[in-house]
């Protein structure tokens, strides 16, 4: 038994740019190039990188949505593609994902209640006390109960993201993969969602994989940071080390830009 909850071992993923007559890939682009990353139970890991750096692809690999071309994704030391029956269902429940755009991550044709109900049913958690569970979930993410009767298009971005978080929590997961969960939201709402996520982590003892292009947000959310660039991990270490003493040129440029931005903001506000 390893002490790691989730691992990516030498994972590579290619995307086909062009397909042949019979569907075979002709040209490939490397989204992930031999990436190895280990996640410990209870930690908050931040992944930072620009768009196209492969961070979302890595998130989808962990969530079992993309099968790597080579390498392995391990859950509790076992390859997730070799898991069967109850073992697979345990992995499926344990690793949940929250996407960037909350509106496209909810089925527009279903009320919030039905979305959550289906998830509870699928994980065998729907019973006589189902309604009470729904109420608890809404309370946990700070939403009024009447939101249950609404359709996604009636919700604000912040509300929709809270519903998406509630759906992830419904199956009582161990790991939440947060793929830019605040990037599509207003700045004031972003802060509220980050606070919510922090308190949920404490309440439920969750493990977080927090992905963002914003190194400040990642710093705020994580104990450990991984910097990705062009499908590779270029730097890895405790948050404070990465911020105060960046080794890789790419990390330095990220932080330089951030310092410039803050200086600029200060200039404007004074």
């Amino acid at each position, binding site marked *: 038994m390893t002490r790691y909850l989730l691992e990516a071992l030498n994972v590579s993923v290619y995307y086909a740019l062009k397909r042949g007559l019979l*569907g075979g890939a002709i040209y490939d682009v490397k989204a992930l190039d031999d990436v190895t990353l280990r996640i410990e139970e209870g930690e908050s890991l931040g992944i930072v990188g620009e768009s196209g750096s492969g961070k979302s692809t890595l998130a*989808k690999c962990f969530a*079992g949505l993309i099968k790597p071309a080579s390498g392995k994704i391990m859950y509790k030391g076992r390859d997730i593609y070799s898991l069967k029956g109850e073992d697979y269902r345990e992995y499926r429940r344990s690793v*949940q994902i929250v996407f960037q755009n909350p509106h*496209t*991550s909810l089925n*527009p044709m*279903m009320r919030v209640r039905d979305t959550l109900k289906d998830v509870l049913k699928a994980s065998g958690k729907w019973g006589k006390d189902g309604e009470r569970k729904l109420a608890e979930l809404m309370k946990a993410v700070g939403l009024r109960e009447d939101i249950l009767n609404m359709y996604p298009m009636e919700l604000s971005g912040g509300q929709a993201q809270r519903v998406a978080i509630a*759906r992830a929590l419904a199956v009582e997961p161990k790991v939440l993969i947060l793929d830019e969960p605040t990037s599509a939201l207003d700045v004031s709402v972003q802060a509220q969602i980050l606070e919510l996520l922090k308190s949920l982590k404490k309440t439920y003892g969750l493990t977080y994989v927090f992905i963002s292009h914003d190194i400040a947000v990642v710093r705020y959310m994580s104990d450990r940071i991984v910097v990705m660039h062009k499908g590779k991990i270029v730097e890895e270490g405790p948050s404070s080390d990465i911020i105060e003493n960046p080794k890789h040129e790419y990390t330095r440029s990220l932080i330089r830009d951030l310092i410039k931005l803050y200086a600029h903001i200060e200039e404007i506000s004074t």
Partner: protein
Amino acid sequence: MTAPWKSLLHFIPYLKSDVLGLFGLTVIAAFILVGITAPYIVPYPEDAWGSTYNVERRLQPPSRSHIFGTDEYGRDVFSRVVLASRFSLIIAVSVVTLSLIIGILVGLIAGYWGGPLATTLMRVTDMFLAFPSLLLAIAFASILGRGLFNLIIALTIAWWPWYARLVYVQVNSVKNMPYVEAARVSGLSSTTILVKYILPNSLTPATIQAFLDMGGAVLEAAALSFVGVGVKPPTPEWGLMISEGWHLIGTAWWVSLFPGLALFFTVLGFNLLGDAFREYSNPKTRRLLESRGVKL
């Protein structure tokens, strides 16, 4: 606000703000009503299938007793035009519904499972699309032989690929939506995802197209009967009636003209209604109307 699919029910109230659509609906409603009650309201119901052959009243111009005149066999044109409406409606509705069902099944299977199966299914679809649909329908109708049922089959064979294509494209984009990925991560079964997540979100373009195609189906059915591969005479059918009166157009214009007008108005009605439905399905239009205080 209600469920997006339930908003289909709001199409009729919407028509209050769309004059042409309302006209289309009125025409189609009238044709449906006439189609259903036809045998009870026409003056000469026995003329429909031409069992009576009246030499003494053949080719009479429109008059008080025969308002659309009579044809070569002395049959009342008005009675036949009215009775024919039910066949045109049956053909249009059956062809479009059957094509839509086949199209949805093929598009859904190919779009969802992908791989060699999808490639094969969509290449077959492309093969059908490579022919002009009318030509394909004529070819199949001649192979199958004349008759109402065969006509429906022939037209359906020519029509389903259009819907398959539309559904396929939509399924392909919907299946990669984050809500489908989220559903998979939540552990929902493939069946649930297919039925509750992918299917309802993939139907809009094909449904709109089906609405728009109703008029076309009426027209193609008439065209097939006109060239002699559609329904069997003496079935009262507009295309057949036009073709029967065609060689008399100089002397007895009424034999072809009235079925032609009936065809024209039905197609016009379906097209206007289809256009209105397309407008209605456009979220921009609905938002605009809602902002103007129109309650939907």
